[in-house]
């Protein structure tokens, strides 16, 4: 078929007024969630001091809450959750594998440098 190269777009992403209402409701729910999570993080940061007994748990909690926020931003706001499954994993998996490996190497090495200093 003949087509203009500019008009290359998946038409199934158009939606009706009714579907839009549902989508908007979801967007506002995610907004509320992200705001609450950020407020909780700041409150915890102000209450629990670094190096105290509870700090390790709070640190892990911070990382989990960050991943939760990131998940909602990527899957809902960036619509990666609505794309084909294979695209989702092509974006997420190589990145995750690389960054986890990189973190392991850098933090192990950093601790070794701290010991040597």
């Amino acid at each position, binding site marked *: 078929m003949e087509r203009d190269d500019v008009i*290359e777009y*998946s038409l199934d992403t158009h939606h009706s007024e009714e579907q839009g209402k549902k*989508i908007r409701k979801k967007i506002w729910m*995610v907004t509320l969630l992200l705001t609450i999570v*950020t407020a909780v993080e700041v409150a915890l940061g102000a209450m629990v001091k670094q*190096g105290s007994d509870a700090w390790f748990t709070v640190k892990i909690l911070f990382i989990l809450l*960050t991943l939760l926020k990131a998940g909602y931003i990527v899957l809902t706001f960036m*619509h990666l959750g609505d794309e084909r499954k294979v695209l989702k994993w092509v974006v997420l998996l190589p*990145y995750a594998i690389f960054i986890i490996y990189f973190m392991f190497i850098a933090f192990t090495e950093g601790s070794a440098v701290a010991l040597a200093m």
Partner: protein
Amino acid sequence: MAGHATNEIDGATLWGGKVSPFSASYGKLMMWFFLVSDALTFGGLLVAYGFSRYAFDGMWPIGEETFEALPFLGNGFPLAYVALMTFILIVSSVTMVLAVEAGHRMDKKGVVKWMLATIVGGFFFLGSQAWEWSHFIHGTEFGRVALSDGSSAVVKGEFGKIKSFTVIEAGHHAHGMVAGDEITNENIDASEVDLMHAFQHAASAGHLHGTADDLTITLHDGTKAKVNKEADKNLELLIKEAGSKYSVSLPSDVSTRLSGEEAIAEYYEALAHGNVIYGANLEQNEYGPKQYGQFFFFITGFHGFHVFSGVIINILIFVGVLRGIYHKRGHYEMVEKTGLYWHFVDLVWVFVFTFFYLI
């Protein structure tokens, strides 16, 4: 892509080769690939930050101790300002996704409204970051001091206001002042800016002498004067690098800080020896190791540059929306693609917030 011949994909999505990898349009897929590579850059920066943090251990500054100021309200609000910045960026991300949603309904008015809100939010964030940088560069009223035993400490408390300098011996640029005259913010020489600037400049140049109750200052023009200053309140020294006498203070244990008379004596002895750093630049900073300042400028600066370019791209697309280009085209995919970039900027900030400020 194997078996694409049997896939039923609407013609408009097909690329030049009449296939459509991942059923995504060419532009959107390339935006995703770009974002993955950009995420690797930011990931690399944050992991490098983590490396330094591990390597420097207890010397590394703590977010809630370093970032606790608010515009107009002063100190004592740990992380409140950064939380506000985070909130601004999250909200602008929400308005962006609402613009994308309006685009899917071909609602031009909605797209215009929400994109405009996104652009305004972007400018708010950039303005906040300008304040944050300015505050970081100028530093606190106390600065960071190197103590007599070789340790170094950051200082908390309420800085007593400098009321005036009483001239002891007039310099060569004294505007006819003689001994006994008062130098105030109103009549101070323009090269000194104000009393506070003159004080900090003299302190870092080693031109302050005496003790907390009896301080003399030497100004640029050689004027010697007595410093009339209110007493500092709740002055505490948080030891960051151990010396022969003091060991590193634990953030979780207030009793490991230096306070009271001892803290005041140590602090003013350091000032009288010029052993103080105010604010930050790429060479040194009052918060911690110099790498800390460098990471701050590079990571938040690189992110801020992304926000800035994001605002510019949003404005270009916004003009396109106003002119009805995308409406005529039959879809608002350009809004969706610039939206992807904008959300990515928000995503990066979520990680910077956690790893730079919180942990």
